[in-house]
């Protein structure tokens, strides 16, 4: 048993971290967000590194790696707050890869793998789709309605720009004129997408923690760095605990997706619920630990806080995930007691 990235996975993580550290420092994130744009050069580099196709099978032109490798990258994208369409792109691709028929896979995945087209995803409630990330540029749009999903091409939708407070990501309201249902295992695809969301959320929590630790070591009040006061330092310890448990759940779910698919339903819900809560709470605690500075636009902590809320709201909400976990546990226990009785 080895519950850590292996050498190849660490290399992927390192590459992502270095590229994003160089190409997406906070001032670039801010510039892109304030311009309502993405960093297109950064996106080209991501495509060149094969990230959109990292977890797409080789027969569709992807790199053919697993969800663990994808999580390693997406976590860093979250950490960097990278202004790019990667997250929605890979979430949609995961749903198409599991939920699409062979023909649907063959139609959509190769273009996504090469970055020729980007994909996106949103949930539908009472027939209307929630604001959809990156819909303006997307060539493949996946709509999730309960446990069913459908897909449209860009030509078959109408789009109106919609802005979230999270300006690091662009959205649109989309109306479907024509879409076709995804005919295979949509549920698994959605669970895999929730794990990708959890990875980005874990990265956001880690960023909020790191920024805060650096600040409270430096900032002095009452003749001491404020990080020396337990009122602050114990909160930082709690931020670490939230971040690390979210990471444990996320990595486990990613491994489960590849190696133990039966466990994925529970593991993915655990990952999304804990990472969603962790990122929102840790980002809020980061603002608090910074005091007045944290409340300013300039300090930039708000980018983390807003993106955490926006990511947590994607696909399924944390409380519904908790209920799924409880129901799955009850099923497991019923099955076990039937076995014992038999």
């Amino acid at each position, binding site marked *: 048993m080895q519950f850590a990235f292996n050498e190849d996975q660490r290399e992927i993580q390192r590459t992502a971290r270095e590229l994003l550290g160089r190409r997406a420092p906070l001032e670039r994130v801010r510039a892109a967000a304030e311009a309502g744009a993405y960093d297109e050069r950064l996106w080209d580099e991501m495509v060149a590194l094969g990230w959109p196709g990292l977890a797409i099978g080789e027969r569709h032109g992807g790199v053919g790696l697993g969800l663990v490798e994808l999580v390693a990258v997406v976590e860093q994208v979250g950490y960097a707050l990278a202004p790019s369409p990667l997250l929605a792109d890979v979430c949609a691709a995961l749903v198409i890869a599991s939920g699409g028929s062979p023909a649907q896979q063959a139609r959509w995945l190769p273009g996504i793998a090469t970055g020729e087209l980007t994909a996106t995803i949103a949930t539908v409630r009472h027939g209307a789709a*929630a*604001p959809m990330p990156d819909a303006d540029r997307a060539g493949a749009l996946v709509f999730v309605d309960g446990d069913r999903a459908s897909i449209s091409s860009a030509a078959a939708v109408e789009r109106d720009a*919609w*802005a*979230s*407070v*999270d*300006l690091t990501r662009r959205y649109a309201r989309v109306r479907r004129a024509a879409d076709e249902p995804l005919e295979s295992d949509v549920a698994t695809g959605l669970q895999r997408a929730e794990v990708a969301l959890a990875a980005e959320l874990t990265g956001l929590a880690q960023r909020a923690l790191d920024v805060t630790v650096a600040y409270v070591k430096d900032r*002095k*009040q*009452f*003749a*001491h760095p404020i990080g020396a*006061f337990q*009122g*602050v330092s114990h909160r930082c310890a709690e931020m670490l605990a939230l971040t690390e448990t979210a990471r444990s759940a996320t990595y486990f779910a990613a491994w489960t997706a590849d190696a133990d698919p039966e466990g994925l339903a529970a593991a993915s819900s655990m990952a999304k619920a804990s990472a969603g809560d962790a990122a*929102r709470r840790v980002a*809020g605690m980061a*603002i*608090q630990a910074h*005091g*007045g500075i*944290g*409340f*300013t*636009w*300039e300090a930039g*902590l*708000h980018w983390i*806080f*807003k993106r955490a*809320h*926006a990511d*947590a*709201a*994607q696909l399924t*909400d*944390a*409380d519904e995930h908790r*209920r799924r976990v409880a129901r799955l546990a009850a099923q497991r226990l019923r099955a076990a007691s039937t076995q014992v009785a038999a």
Partner: protein
Amino acid sequence: MDLGLTASELAFRDELRDWLRQSPPGPTPLEERASFDHRRAWDQRLHAGGWAGVHWPVEYGGRGATLVESAIYNEELARAAAPPPVNVIGLTLAGPTIMTHGDEAQRARFLPPILSAEEIWCQGFSEPGAGSDLAAVATRAHQVDGGWRITGQKVWTSFAHDAQWCLLLARSDPDAPRHKGLTYFLLDMAQDAVQVRPLRTISDTHELNEVFLEDAFVPDAHVLGGVGNGWRVAMTTLGNERSGLVFGKSFQARILLDRLTALADERGLLEDANVATRLGELHIRVEAVRLTAYRNVTSEMQSGQPGPEGSIIKWIWSETDQAITEYAVQLLGIEALDRDSPWAFELLRARGDTIESGTTEIIKNIVAEQVLGLPRLR
């Protein structure tokens, strides 16, 4: 124990309600400049109607409202969706501080235009190096002929870009012990030596400023409470900071929560036991803030000082407001994060609640030391 209003409290409330019915505040525009103008006009209408600074003594143009009447006042204005006063610093901080520490000339000069919202005030206490640790104020005041020259930087200054006057705390004697070398000045903002630079907040509003002072001048006549006495005067200001306002704020939290509850009800979400449990908990917390604030009013009226419950009100209000806005966004989903959604705005604005006017950490210190009598480490 009698939570009913007395005849005179009822009369006060009914008179105010009548006035508000006849003179409704109307909707506050979203755009910042228009919003400011609307709020200032509203302050002036309140003044014209005799409803500005109700807690001020009659001799200074107020109504000498009791604490209960002040609470009623703030609740009723919140109920009528009136905007917060644009001269809130003047009415709640500058006015009472000048009444307590000002001389006759200062009272005569400064109090009337506060009440009429002709002169807006701001508060120059915090500095980049003096936030929670206010006694670390480093802005320097040098005595010159006829007054003082002041150099330094203030931060988190609400209304500075619209203010004529600033309650300024500065170090007049660098050699005295930290708390002793401070003096409290009434600074005229209309001089080139005072530069105001906006600070954007996380909700992208212009609510706060940095203020840069470079040899700004304050005449001797505008020293408040005596040279070297700044810490004591500042404590008077801080003591007034939270009084009364919490009733308006907790009522606003209640309005927010009611709106969320009604939305959830319309969508049938209260059938979900989890949603109902969580909303019920939020209602309990909102009500606890209001009730605890009322208990504190009685304590203060009876004993002249807040009871043990008084120090927790701002703290529990701020955490409740954050909890409401976070749950609203969770319940309503991504639509609530619309850049123009009031839910998104409230979610972000609420992050300031636990920071401004004393961080929650500082309040916990105060409760521990001053209410519970625990020793301090530092």
